[in-house]
């Protein structure tokens, strides 16, 4: 049986590529699991035809948990709109989004942030963000959902904490 012959330059090259791979693995692992730049997770599964009977989902929108500090947003994507379309939260607060679909797949992406989730009927995605800067952040449907897809968007109004609720 003949053994594997590798050119010496190529050996060096492969070593470099393995080192590169290890570096990537560590960097994204640290960013994700130590620094908290995390992907969305599952909150729960829910029958999309029963959202209206659910105490929480029949009334989507913002919930204040700790004033100025902690908020929840329940958001429904459906053809071809987000419910609600407008969300107001204070700057500097941690906002956790719960997103699900009433019908087919949609996408939820907030411009200029790393908020991004595939909206899957039957599943509630959970993701968090702290908006440090006041301003308007558009969110857009990023998955094809039929003829009205291109018009499907909403806006998050981030206001200075002292103006919130006024």
């Amino acid at each position, binding site marked *: 049986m003949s053994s594997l012959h590798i050119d010496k330059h*190529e050996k060096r*090259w492969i070593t470099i590529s393995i080192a590169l791979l290890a570096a990537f693995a560590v960097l994204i692992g640290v960013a994700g699991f130590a620094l908290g730049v995390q992907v*969305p997770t599952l909150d729960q599964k829910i029958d999309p035809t029963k959202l209206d009977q659910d105490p929480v989902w029949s009334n989507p929108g913002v919930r204040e948990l700790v004033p100025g500090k902690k908020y929840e947003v329940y958001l429904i994507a459906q053809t071809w709109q987000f419910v609600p379309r407008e969300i107001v939260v204070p700057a500097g607060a941690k906002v956790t989004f719960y997103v699900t679909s009433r019908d*087919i*797949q949609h996408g939820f992406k907030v411009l200029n942030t*790393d908020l991004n989730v595939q909206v*899957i009927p*039957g*599943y509630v995605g959970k993701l968090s963000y702290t908006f440090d800067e006041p301003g308007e952040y558009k969110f857009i449907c990023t998955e094809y959902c039929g003829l009205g897809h291109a018009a499907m968007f909403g806006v998050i109004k981030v206001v200075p904490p002292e103006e919130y609720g006024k």
Partner: protein
Amino acid sequence: MANEYTLTRAEKRFIGWHIFVAVAALAIGSFFGPMQAFNYAGWNFYPQLKKLHIAQSYYQGLTLHGVLNAVVWTTFFILGFLTFNMIYGLKRPLKYPKLNAFGFWMMVVGLLLAAFYILANQASVLYTFYPPMKAPWPFYLGLVLLVVGSWIEGYGFYFTLHQWKKDNPGVRTPFIAFASVATMVLWQLATLGVAIEALFMLLPWSAGLVKGIDIQLARTFFWWFGHPLVYFWLLPAYISWYGYLPRQAGGKLFSDTMARLAFWLFILLSVPVGFHHQFVDPGVAPGWKYIHALLTLSVVIPSLMTLFTVVASLEYAGRQRGGKGLMGWLAALPWDDPIVASQLLAGILFIFGGFGGIVNASYNTNLILHNTAWVPGHFHLTVSTAVTLTFMGISFWLVPYLTGRELCCRKAALVQVYLWFIGMAIFSQAMHSLGLLGAPRRTPLGEAPYIPPEWSGLLLRVGIGGIILLVAVYMYIWIMAHTAFFAKKAAKEVEIQVAEAMTDVQAVPEWLDAWKPWLVGAVALLVIAYTPVLIDLISGMMPVAGPNIKLW
């Protein structure tokens, strides 16, 4: 030098049918690419296309674009090219030509069935057909036939190789035949996922036999298929870069051994990685997503090995041609030969595609770009350039070989490949930038109400790329039509330029020519990477019926 083996007329015709279907699909499918790009730039032709009954909507056009280009052009071209490699590489006919013909016609029937529903605007569900958007059940049946037909052609290859091995004990399989079978094996592993999705979920649900299906589960089966699909497109291009390009450029293959090792690593590493398309899916746990991210990034190794071997082979070729110094060999390559230039240009843009791919695969960086215009920006460098431009280069010798005519208009072919390169570079750069700003994909951005004015410069550049590509793609179609049917009959058969290796092929270790250990390894990795998540999803299914109305 005469060819060492000649295909029969029937074999040439059989391969020719594959290429014909592929190019016809490209001719129709690629019309919509520039239309999409024009829509971005604010030049919207969809009202006219609707009036002319060409496409009812942007989305019907996009479905045609995705299916005809990414599925039909690629799959048919690949099977045609691989059939050639099998016969010419092994220097023997297929063992059961009728079996392969049966597989081919099954693919054609499947294609016609699916195409009927798309053209009737009954299945404008895009080429990923995500449920619970629902197409009529024969559409899914068409897809199943297409896939099963391709399996059958693959089985034909396995039988042929098996017979050859029996007749040539101890001889290493010639690279182009080995790599062709490897590509079909990868395809077999990949398509299992989508076959399960279609047969057990989409078909019964769409036919009304079951009420609902779990959408997260369907996506998971789809992406088990979706990522290795891209390697099914790429590996045939690699066959050309390893197995033909070195000789076409005037040199030899640097290392036959490393070429084979790279192919095995691709088989191992390209299947158990589907979650990198599902980083933002709620139903898959972060730990598993991270594991798939690591497996995906491991593809860096065979990819950089390929880069090394191909560049080393080209350097040798360049020096043989008199190129001197650190970079002189590069300039000495035949940049004025459309067959070589197409592949060199394909390779250059592919390097950028590779960089982008690392960003896509890197778990949390994916948050920025998932489902944005970055993604089509990325794969127009890979499948639509690295693969497509290489296939164009292959067709410049393969089609004349098959038809016995000369490549019509060599100069036009040369201009065409450079135009493709320039057009895609402009188009793709703008798409990547738009994606980073958050522009969604699969969206007629020219009509979206939320577009900030700052994006308009980039949208315009997408349109400009589209103009150049519109010219390039129809130049190609024209060249192909002429070469196939009208060009001058050639005096002698096209010389087939299979590259010789610098190393002795018999020195390839035996374990690199043995199938079993690698297949066992690939299946084991697949099982490890998917079983826990599949068990979790199946045991907690949340079936959804979906709206029973047409949404497009």
